[in-house]
């Protein structure tokens, strides 16, 4: 089954980003188990893929490279980055929502004459068309709201 995930809430002000992370991890783990156990009939896990995870509204804050939680707290920002590298996930941050809220990549920094940029390179900035396309190409869109 092909999933896409929509994240609408920011870390700390909402549970959306963390819950979405756990969902994605579980969907990909099921996939992982399947590939390891495909010769064993005992395993009934269905094979899942995640087409895209789209970050919209306050959800865009998950893509900040600069957020630095205390070392004794779970680092959700890092966890997303690690999940992306491990599974080569397509993490897309809505460009309009992010630029408004001050999360920009190097390209946008150049375009808007900003000296700094703060978006993690594990995410990419793109338009809402990517969410519309994700809906068209996925069996389910799972939304994690504020």
């Amino acid at each position: 089954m092909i999933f896409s995930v929509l994240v609408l809430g920011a870390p700390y002000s909402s549970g959306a980003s963390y819950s979405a992370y756990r969902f994605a991890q579980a969907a990909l783990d099921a996939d992982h188990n399947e590939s390891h156990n495909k010769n064993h009939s005992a395993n009934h896990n269905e094979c899942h893929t995640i087409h895209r995870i789209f970050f919209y509204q306050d959800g865009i804050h998950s893509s900040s490279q600069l957020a630095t939680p205390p070392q004794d707290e779970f680092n959700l920002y890092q966890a997303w980055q690690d999940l992306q590298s491990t599974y080569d996930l397509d993490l897309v941050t809505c460009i309009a929502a992010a630029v408004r809220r001050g999360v920009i990549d190097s390209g946008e920094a150049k375009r808007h004459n900003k000296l700094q940029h703060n978006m993690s390179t594990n995410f990419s900035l793109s338009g809402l068309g990517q969410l519309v396309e994700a809906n068209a190409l996925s069996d389910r869109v799972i939304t994690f709201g504020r």
Partner: protein
Amino acid sequence: MPNDNKQKPILIVNQSAPYGNANAKESLDLALASSAFEQALSILFTGDGIYQLLPKQSPDDIQSKNLLQMLKALPIYGVEQLYVDQQSLTERGITELDTQLPIVLVNSVEISRLYHDAQTVFRF
């Protein structure tokens, strides 16, 4: 849109009043993106979302763009009908909505059908 022969109709539900937060504006942005990609799209206004449809909005002095004017442009983008929860109007004592909007009043049975007919529901 890549070749995809399956219909994935979208329902956008607006339940937030305009101007106090970005929900109404960011919902409209998604509606416009959906119609740009020629997706089957229905829009429902319910709860406080119906405040988006009040006439005579003039948000210039709070430095906001007029959301009502943007909603009026939806038919140009192929969104022919805006579904409005009749009960939400009654509960809020609203008798007058902007007359230039292509509004269709719906009851709870019709609202339930809108949700069931959609493949994906986005709520704002």
